[in-house]
């Protein structure tokens, strides 16, 4: 029965989909709206479910597309969001102590600065535990591309960590 499948396989994805949408939209309310949109759309298409390879992958892809649409509609705002991060650089904020928290901030900035695809691959892997195949499905890229993105992203972060450590040692 469609309802059972929906409740058993689609609905449980709500938090994963939410986090994914939130990463793209950076707003709690909008991310919720996006997930609701997607789930409504999937329910409406229940006649097609048997034809899909994976309902889960479809959910993630649909979420991605819904979010990209929303971002396109608020084009201007996306650019502005990025700039807010520059304010937390250590040169401007003498109050921040040299602690784990600062390192986390540095990592966050690094992540936000990574190319979109690398960011998404890392998120899907590190935070959602998706396999390479699943990531390739959702983002519509090849397995190789997944591995390359993960490799580059992780090492970019590693570089930042090392740089920060050296900075601290000098002080």
């Amino acid at each position, binding site marked *: 029965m469609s*309802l059972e499948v*929906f409740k058993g396989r689609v*609905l449980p994805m*709500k*938090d994963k989909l*939410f*986090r994914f949408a*939130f*990463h793209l939209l950076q707003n*709690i309310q909008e*991310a*919720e709206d996006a*997930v*609701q*949109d997607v*789930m*409504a759309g999937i*329910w409406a298409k229940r006649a097609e479910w048997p034809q899909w390879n994976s309902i889960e992958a479809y959910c993630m892809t649909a979420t991605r597309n819904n979010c990209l649409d929303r971002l396109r509609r608020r084009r201007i705002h996306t650019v502005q969001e990025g700039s807010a991060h520059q304010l937390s650089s250590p040169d401007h904020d003498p109050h921040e102590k040299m*602690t*784990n928290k600062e*390192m*986390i901030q*540095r*990592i*966050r900035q690094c*992540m936000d600065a990574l190319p979109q695809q690398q960011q998404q691959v890392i*998120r899907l*892997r*590190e*935070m959602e*535990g*998706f*396999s390479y195949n699943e990531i390739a499905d959702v983002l519509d890229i090849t397995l190789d591309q997944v*591995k390359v993105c*993960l*490799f580059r992203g*992780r*090492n970019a*972060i*590693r570089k930042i*960590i*090392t740089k*920060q*450590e050296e900075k601290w040692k000098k002080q």
Partner: protein
Amino acid sequence: MEKAVILALLERYWRAETTVEEEKTLAAWFSEQAPGSLDPDLEPYHALFAYFDEETQVTPGPGFEARILERVGISEPRPVRQFQWGLVSAAAAVLVLAIGLFLLTPSEPPAGPVSAARIPGTRSPATGTPATPTTATRITDTYDNPDQALAAVRHALLIASNHLNEGRKQITNK
């Protein structure tokens, strides 16, 4: 877990050769260590897994699932309420509650010295006891009298006005 094992896992992690299970092991191990307590070889990476953990903390508001179901159009059958009686007793209950709240709204100024909280651009506030803890739903006054309150509102309006104008200028200059 041995430091050597973790280091080995990390090396493969950087080469993107670890499995999901191995990554879970790494994350779990690091989350059990207190920051600052690790070997210098491992310490820098504590923040990495802490960051990923933090990022999974963002959650939707309460009742998310219910809202989804409502939106999708699947609603559980609900018992039909006994209309007339329910309305009367519910309304009466709310009325009593509302009157109570209304009477309780403080008309006295908060006890203790008033703290002139910081509005950007002002001199540092006079020290005093911090503002009495308040729930978000009720606004309790910071100032004792309307003259002080007006001064604060006026100052804030000027600040907002200044920045608003800067913004408008930028737009018309484009």
